């Protein structure tokens, strides 16, 4: 049920593709860095508590 975008199909689809790519990349990169930092903090805290 793709709507008929007429002669502007390329324009509309490229705007959506670029925007969604940027939004998804922002969310994914934020979550990846967040997970990495969270894991590292747990590791450092464990090491600190082990070493007193």
């Amino acid at each position, binding site marked *: 049920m793709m709507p008929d975008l007429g002669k502007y199909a390329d*324009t509309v689809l490229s*705007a959506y593709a670029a925007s969604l790519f940027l*939004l998804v990349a*922002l969310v994914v990169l934020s979550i990846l860095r967040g997970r990495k930092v969270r894991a590292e903090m747990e590791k450092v805290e464990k090491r600190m508590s082990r070493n007193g």
Partner: protein
Amino acid sequence: MSIASKANALWEYANPKKFLTTTERVLPFFWISSAVFIVVGLVWGFFFTPDDYKQGSTVKIIYLHVPSALMAINCWIMMLATSLVWLVRRHHVSALAARAAAPVGIVMTLIALATGAIWGQPMWGTWWAWDPRLTSFLILFLFYLGYVALWEAIEDPDTAADLTSVLCLVGSVFAFLSRYAVNFWNQGLHQGASVMRVGAVTGTDTEEKVSNIFFFPLLVCIIGFVLLFIALVFYRTGTEIRARRIKALIARERVNG
């Protein structure tokens, strides 16, 4: 509870632990609701709204262009508020929140510029024009890049927070111009506000406005972008707080031998 004591209660969130506990609790709501609003708004706008009589199907770009442009400006305003809190009250969480928000602002500005150029090409016959609103938006984008670069370039976090806060104050002029440049300089290709104007929505003024058939899905998208912005800033601020704590713990470990 009086207004003053309510306002004072806000400062509790300057405590990193309190901030992390609260945001971890509310984050699932913001992630899920933002996804729901954005998907519903975009599907509604893309599949279930007609073409515009003047702009054809390119009107569907409005559902991405307007929310991202709004968030690009509002993100800087949020950074300005948190930077002022840092400068006046020296709360580290507020400086880290500004730092966390900047990349979100970069992406929002980039989406607004890219969709604007893609939309402008068939409508204006050009990808770009040195129009007041477009130019001030480009400068805002450069300010965002400069802000992030400054954070990365300075080793001492408090000095970095001080200098980026001052940069944020200066850049606010362009955040303001991005919104109001069209009103100041009545020239250029970009139209004036046709959505976030009370009279445009209620129909009490006679200037050109967005039809309600486009406005309602657009409103859903705007709400979705606001919720996504909050989710991202909460999550990324949590990351910055933890990264700062790691540095502090490692420094303490070194001192203790």
